[in-house]
């Protein structure tokens, strides 16, 4: 959705993330989360009581802790009772829900957060549990295997090859050198095959992390942030769950979400793409028609840090932060969920003219 004159102006006014790490044994989820919650409140000067709506994204399967999201609420200060919601999805979808809440006029400010603690389990195996339970999940195809099927399809179609994928990996980790929160930075060997054709370097690091964002509407946003990152459009679309039904070399859901979000109306200068595997960046660049002049994943993207359930929200946060800092005027942020880019969210963010 986008653009209608009656719609409220809503912006990302603050963003914080943890330093993403392979393990955080010494921290419970709420202990990991609290610093980023406090971070966005400090950036805006808001107190818990000033937040009209709170929405989070996480999955209990990652750490194997039932109702971990209710324990995480301890970090919010949910008393007196707050208006709150949770999605069992990446935080980007929690942000979408918060955005709609602000659109209704029921709220002027929203706190959105998400976290993922993959270190206690095996995320490759955990993610098999989101697949079709009748025909697919009993075969336990792990997340790298499914991404590898997509990568091979792209290679067969002539859309990419292994050296090109290695270049995506190298560029991402080099860019991540400037990102102190990233888990994998600098020169990293492309490594051996994990599931051929994907090598270690083509796969995201497994790790723990959290992120938080504050949204605000209209003048409230201008009070809280010198240069708000206005959400000009945001939309999400999903494809069929059957892998063999989909055209894995393309992402019609991303394209449609981008169209609905207004991404193609004017060029963007920056794109933060949630492509956990190198080959997926190839698909997304094509679907989003990104030219070589667009700065893709200056943060290093999900190849540098991929806290599952937070990595999509981080893309929106990174794009917004560049606008806050005056490094971008119009940025696209993308988040994905499910195997082989099954579901995709696109947001278009803009800063006021300087």
């Amino acid at each position, binding site marked *: 959705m986008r653009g209608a004159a009656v719609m409220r102006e809503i912006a990302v006014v603050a963003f914080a993330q943890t330093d993403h790490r392979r393990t955080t044994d010494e921290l419970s989820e709420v202990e990991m989360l609290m610093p980023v919650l406090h971070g966005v409140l400090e950036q805006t000067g808001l107190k818990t009581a000033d937040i009209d709506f709170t929405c989070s994204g996480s999955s209990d*399967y990652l750490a194997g802790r039932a109702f971990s999201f209710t324990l995480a609420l301890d970090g919010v200060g949910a008393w007196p009772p707050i208006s709150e919601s949770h999605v069992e999805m990446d935080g980007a979808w929690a942000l979408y829900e918060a955005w709609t809440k602000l659109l209704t006029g029921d709220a002027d400010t929203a706190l959105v957060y998400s976290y993922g603690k993959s270190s206690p389990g095996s995320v490759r195996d955990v993610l098999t549990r989101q697949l079709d339970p009748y*025909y697919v999940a009993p075969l336990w195809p792990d997340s790298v295997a499914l991404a590898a099927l997509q990568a091979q399809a792209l290679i067969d179609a002539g859309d990419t090859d292994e050296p090109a994928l290695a270049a995506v990996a190298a560029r991402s980790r080099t860019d991540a050198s400037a990102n102190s929160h990233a888990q994998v930075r600098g020169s990293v060997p492309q490594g051996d095959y994990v599931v051929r054709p994907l090598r270690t370097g083509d796969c995201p690091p497994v790790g723990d992390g959290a992120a938080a964002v504050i949204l605000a509407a209209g003048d409230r946003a201008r009070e809280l942030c010198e240069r708000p990152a206005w959400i000009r459009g945001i939309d999400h679309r999903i494809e069929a769950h059957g892998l*063999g039904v989909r055209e894995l070399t393309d992402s019609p859901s991303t394209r449609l979400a981008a169209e609905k979000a207004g991404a193609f109306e004017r060029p963007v200068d920056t794109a933060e793409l949630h492509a956990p595997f190198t080959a997926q960046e190839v698909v997304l660049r094509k679907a989003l028609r990104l030219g070589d002049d667009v700065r893709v994943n200056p943060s290093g993207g999900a190849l540098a840090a991929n806290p599952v359930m937070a990595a999509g929200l981080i893309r929106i946060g990174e794009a917004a932060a560049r606008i806050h800092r005056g490094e971008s005027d119009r940025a696209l942020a993308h988040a994905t969920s499910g195997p082989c880019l099954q579901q995709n969210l696109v947001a278009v963010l803009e800063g006021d003219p300087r």
Partner: protein
Amino acid sequence: MPEVLKAPLVLEFPFTRSLGPVQSAFLTGLRERVVLGVKTGDGRTLVPPVEYDPVTAEEIRDLVEVASTGTVTTWAWNHEPRRGQPLDAPFAWVLVRLDGADTALLHALDAPGPDAVHTGMRVRVRWAEGRTGAITDIACFEPYEGAGEDEGDEEHQPTAHTGEFEDMVTGIVAPARLDYVYSPGRAQTDYIHALSEQRTVGERCPSCRKVYVPPRGACPTCGVATAEHVEVGPRGTITTFCIVNIKAKNLDIEVPYVYAHIALDGADLALHGRIGGIPYDQVRMGLRVEAVWSEGGRYPDHYRPTGEPDADYDVYKELL
């Protein structure tokens, strides 16, 4: 900081799932070595078959039989098979479009190595020995040269099928198991370490000054980190209780017994525990109790009366 506690945690469930009419026919068919697809409104044949058209959401029920031979549409070489996957030895994951189908099925391909696999190669189903009506009735695919076989080819025309078999499969049991190494975090690690010394240590909120037992590292009212350790108890007051009349499995405790909320002296949150050393029908709100530790126990086995006079209601009414 004491050593962070860790323990293995296995989550294991047998998911019992009922099947719709199309899934039931497909999985029963596999048991009978027949591969069924379903026709969409625009004439495409979906294998594996689903019950609703993925494009139009229309209910689809027209079943057809397709061949057990097909063509690889993409593949990925898995040199380190993981638990639960179809083959123990290295194999290729494949999407296979069976002859007569318009969509591809995910499964494993048994091949000697990645050099023996390519997109476009011809394969056929290798049936499992003991078939039950599950996707794993296909043991895997295997390379197929086509010569001498009359089962099918790429021009294969699917034939209509009723989807009816004797003794239809109407459900599957899908075991799921995930292994974790659980760590409780800083606050609860400290709490558990203290318990092993028979001390109950909570944490105080720097903002509202409440003492939480057990501590979870954050004050749920103020949303800030707690850190200051406060030893509470060992005595406390029963704030409320219930009488348990159902014997729990693997629990060697005679019913009825009392389970209670206990506000330890100095704590601002009641914890819960079993009450012993007193007949169940004499337990009451305000009863003063203390922890009883079993030999070598790492947490209180139960709480028993101290013999002090009952606490006044006003003293614990905010802790209910």
